[in-house]
């Protein structure tokens, strides 16, 4: 069974780079993409997502608003989220962690760092999330 990974970043280049880096983890994955939080929520509603990688600084709906929406929605609040951002300010990292973020990765990053963190989440004992897309309420 494939792991469904959602990458939310307004930069198509960064989405491409993240896919290459995630592939280095050697896990069977299928990618879903979104260029902002609104599209990210839409992808969550329509696909069984196992892990989310999200940027914070994005147009239309930024990463924090997306995290709040996910956090408040029982259909999605258990999806592990990794924030990949240039933000390194402590207050903002703490705010993201309060919203249930599994890990915070600073740009620029090392490819191994992403692969390691993904293995920690999807490693031994990980059960694929149930498909809850049919019960997902509107955001």
């Amino acid at each position, binding site marked *: 069974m494939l792991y469904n990974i959602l990458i939310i970043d307004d*930069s*198509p280049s*960064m989405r491409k780079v993240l896919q290459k880096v995630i592939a280095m983890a050697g896990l069977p994955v299928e990618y879903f993409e979104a260029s902002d939080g609104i599209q990210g929520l839409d992808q969550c509603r329509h696909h069984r997502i196992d892990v989310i990688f999200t940027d914070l*600084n994005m147009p239309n709906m930024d990463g924090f608003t997306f995290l709040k929406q996910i956090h408040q929605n029982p259909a999605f609040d258990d999806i592990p989220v990794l924030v990949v*951002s*240039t933000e*390194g*300010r402590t*207050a903002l990292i703490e705010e993201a962690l309060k919203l249930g973020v599994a890990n915070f990765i600073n*740009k620029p990053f090392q490819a191994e760092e992403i692969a390691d963190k993904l293995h920690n989440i999807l490693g031994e004992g990980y059960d694929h999330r149930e498909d809850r897309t049919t019960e997902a309420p509107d955001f």
Partner: protein
Amino acid sequence: MITEKIELLKRLTFNILKEMCFLFQSEDLSSVQSEELPILVRIDCGKKYSLFLHFDPILAHTIARNFLGTAQEVIESPFLESALTEVVNMVGGNFMNATHMESTAHLSLPEIVEEDWRVFGHDPRTRIVTEAIKVNDRPLQLTIAEHMA
């Protein structure tokens, strides 16, 4: 001091180009002559600083090629623009982290712009420092506009 900030900007830019694009500063570390370069990206770090990175086209394609990990000689739109704006996004974010800006300060979305830092030229409340440096023997011009309250 704004002169310290331009040194910081140079250091951060080189570090990001090294980490994400495997590019290195040229052996000749002295500043090169400033020249008109065609691709200019702006990002605002809170209300206090605007950063401008002005790319030589060959360097721009090299950065995008290495960032994307492709052997393609010419990087097509929108990947060229998004690779450059992503690099500038990283520079801006790390600049804010390094200068310990308050958490309410907002990092703008990086954008390719037509006008340059000279838009602030007649504003007495703005100080501007610009330096041209070399990366892989190609020019890259870095500018900080510091806006006084």
